[in-house]
């Protein structure tokens, strides 16, 4: 029959997807187990609240990030106004701040005794009860905080999408009489929609998995509910059952996304994709654009950083020095290793999808990306169960033969942490590299193959060089996310292994925000490096080819 060297790839990718899905299966399997009445109690009391809060949060954050991210991306790619070069990369800065740190900072800034309300009282002479002020520790507050944290995902996706649009398409729409506004709605947005939707899908999944900030804002969602059911009540089964519900919601989101993507598969019809030259804004419109870009940067980055700086200078962590360097090293190590492995796995899976888009392969790739939507804590539990099972088997054998067992050589080591991260973050390279693949015309593959290129040569000689930006982008996004990750790290870390995030969480939970601020700053600083590097991806290509100062 048909010679098929690609079959081994396919098998390898299925194995990869299965390993990634293992924790999800182990959690889902608990649906058949008896929670000893805990589930029934949950259903009677808090389940409805979990559902409504989670949905409202996802809706609010999804819409908010879509609005902020797309608007900012459109402004910095289509127009030129004072500070646009700065905003183009500064709008990514909030990526460096984990949501729980944003929650700590915002709560501190906006609470009754915080600087905002203190200033208000001092300037107006009001005292308690004289005025209304929005409550940060609320659902709306959580939405506000998460939008500030997560909009860069949409901004990044939309900017990439806008920049890859060909100028000729935009010009064609101008000749058809479309104004700048209607061009945006009728041409630019629909064409960039796959990129934008990928960004929003990531945001919504991140929101559903969100633990730290939501927990701090005292909003009961599925995520916090799962955590409390397991930590507080010690009911692993009920926690797993709750997370299975969440998994169902995420599955639905995935189906929606895939339908959307399928109906919006655009290829570049023109040969050259030179982005259009930006239009110059003047006067009030320039200032409005300036303000629209300044607010997210200010709220999402400058204010929290300045507050943490202030707290650090005034107080700070009493144990700086070598402790810090060690913790930062640990964080960088796990983030680096995870990013590298995730990008390699993501590349394997996405190139399989491109080469052989059979329904089973598409399923494998899609399944491997599900972990992103699942709360870190739940993944941790899911990782532990199969690891315990393997360790048990190995220990049984070695003890009967050698009268010695290696003990918890998987679940009690850094391996468990790395495995958990892998499950959680593989969706990032799948999305980013997948989008990168979509920008390479399929005829390029045909050309390489008719020129005698093997699969490997096609990958290394053509795809990898063309995907460099996407690979880099994917690795950095994973790196940043691992640095921020909290719940899975809390559960899976070995006893002698702390990261910066764990230390900050512990201090903040004890209301020792002043001390936590030093670690928080360090996390933000570490996160800044990849973010600054990431901004290179957003350099518009027309900058070096188009004559300067030319605007339509």
């Amino acid at each position, binding site marked *: 029959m*048909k*010679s098929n060297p690609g079959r081994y790839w396919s098998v390898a990718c299925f194995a990869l997807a299965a390993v990634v899905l293992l924790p999800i299966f182990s959690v889902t399997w608990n649906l058949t187990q008896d929670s000893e009445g805990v589930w029934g109690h949950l259903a009677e009391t808090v389940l409805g609240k979990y559902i409504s809060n989670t949905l409202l949060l996802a809706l609010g954050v999804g819409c908010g990030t879509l609005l902020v991210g797309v608007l900012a991306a459109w402004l910095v790619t289509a127009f030129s106004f004072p500070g646009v070069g700065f905003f183009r990369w500064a709008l990514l800065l909030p990526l460096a701040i984990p949501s729980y740190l944003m929650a700590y900072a915002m709560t501190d800034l906006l609470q009754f005794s915080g600087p905002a309300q203190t200033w208000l009282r001092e300037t107006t002479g009001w005292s308690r009860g004289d005025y209304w002020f929005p409550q940060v520790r609320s659902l709306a507050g959580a939405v506000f905080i998460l939008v500030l944290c997560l909009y860069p995902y949409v901004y990044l996706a939309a900017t990439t999408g806008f920049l890859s649009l060909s100028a000729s398409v935009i010009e064609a729409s101008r000749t058809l009489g479309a104004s700048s506004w209607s061009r945006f709605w009728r041409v630019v947005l629909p064409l960039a929609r796959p990129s934008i939707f990928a960004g929003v899908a990531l945001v919504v999944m991140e929101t559903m998995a969100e633990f730290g900030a939501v927990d701090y804002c005292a909003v009961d969602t599925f995520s916090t509910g799962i955590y409390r059911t397991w930590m507080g009540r010690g009911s692993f089964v009920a926690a797993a059952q709750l997370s299975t519900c969440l998994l169902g919601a995420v599955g639905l989101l995935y189906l929606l996304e895939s339908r959307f993507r399928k109906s919006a598969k655009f290829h570049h019809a023109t*040969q*050259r994709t030179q982005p259009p030259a930006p239009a110059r804004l003047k006067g009030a419109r320039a200032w409005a654009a300036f303000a629209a870009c300044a607010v997210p940067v200010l709220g999402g980055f400058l204010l929290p950083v300045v507050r943490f700086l202030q707290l650090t200078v005034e107080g700070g962590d009493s144990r700086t020095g070598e402790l810090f360097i060690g913790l930062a090293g640990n964080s960088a190590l796990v983030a680096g290793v995870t990013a590298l492995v995730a990008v390699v796995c993501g590349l394997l899976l996405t190139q399989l999808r491109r080469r052989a888009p059979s329904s089973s392969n598409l399923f494998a790739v899609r399944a491997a990306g599900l972990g992103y939507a699942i709360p870190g804590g739940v993944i941790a539990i899911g990782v532990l169960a199969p690891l315990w099972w393997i360790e048990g088997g190995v220990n049984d054998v070695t003890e009967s033969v050698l009268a010695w067992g290696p003990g918890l050589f998987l679940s009690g080591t850094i391996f468990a942490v790395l495995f958990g991260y892998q499950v959680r973050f593989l969706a990032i390279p799948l999305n980013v590299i997948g989008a990168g693949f979509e920008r390479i*015309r399929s*005829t*390029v593959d*045909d*050309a*390489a*193959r*008719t*020129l*005698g*290129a*093997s699969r490997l040569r096609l990958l290394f*000689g*053509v795809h990898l*060089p*063309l995907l460099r930006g996407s690979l880099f982008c994917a690795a950095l996004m994973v790196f940043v996310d691992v640095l921020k990750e909290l719940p899975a790290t809390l559960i899976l870390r070995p006893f002698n292994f702390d990261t910066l995030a764990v230390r900050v969480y512990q201090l903040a939970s004890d209301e020792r925000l002043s001390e936590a601020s030093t670690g928080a700053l360090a996390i933000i600083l570490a996160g800044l490096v990849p973010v600054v590097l990431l901004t290179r991806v957003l350099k518009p290509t027309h900058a070096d080819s188009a004559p300067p100062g030319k605007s339509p």
Partner: protein
Amino acid sequence: MTTGPAIQLKGLSLSYGDVVAVDDVSLDIPGGEIHCLLGASGSGKSTLLRIIAGLERQGEGSVTIGGEVVSDAEGHIETERRPVGFVLQDYALFPHLDALENVLFGMPDRKSAESRMKAEELFAEVGLSDRVDAMPHTLSGGEQQRVALARAMARSPQVMLLDEPFSSLDVQLRAGVRETTLRILREAGVATVMVTHDPAEALSCGDRVSILREGKLIQTGSPEAIYHHPCGQEAAETFGVINRLAGESSGGRVKTSLGEVDLAAQDPGCPGTVLLRPEQLVLVESGDGGCRVDRIFPEGSTTLYLVQTAEDERLYVRMLSTETLPEDSSLAVRLR
């Protein structure tokens, strides 16, 4: 070398679900022949090309290249191991490699001095010696086409496949690029299959032409045979408007209202009618005229007239644009 055809297609069929893209196509192409596949979009011509290249696998039938079966029900040699060169419609130059690296890409020993020399010879042949280091996005359309051709030629393929190679070039450029391309292919003596939707291009480029329609190969022959002896109305209409006239056949000739013609021009699918191209007719001055010119279509060197006859027939007549037309009242249509 083998004495058989360079490319042999036998009973090729391919369906996507209910859509039949290629329907039982058989074709032999001898070495050195430039063969044009002519058809409208959706006629299956590009799919046929992709099957020969191995980018698609046929549902039924076999493909033989240079006497070796490269694909049939038993086995399928992958594209990368077939001795074919393919110039894709959008040229698909690798955007991260410069022109020279693009051409070197498919060569067996890319780093050797010989390969580099051969590549530079190819650049000289296509007239691009000064653009060796250019990146694809800085090349014009015509330059991209020629780099794509050089890239495909660099592997010295037995078979060259061209998918609408000139369709994205502007007209002034097209003739020059076409001439260069055909000269290089003829010098190399490589069997070439070229897909086009432009009838004039097919006739002027092809040693032989095949007409595809809805996945079926309806006629194959030399440009003259295809044009002057179409096998039916579909084949005839590929090259523009056609006149249908009723006629009675007798002894190898057909008698029509306008006179007698050779049987060869008859529609075999429909006995009793003959098909005549507009240039087979002529407008003359005659006392028993009564024809009226309905519309005039200037074509440059020729002019096409739509004529209403006294018998209320509508006929297309093509005349040289330098010929003057007689007075309207005394017009008649005659066979040339």
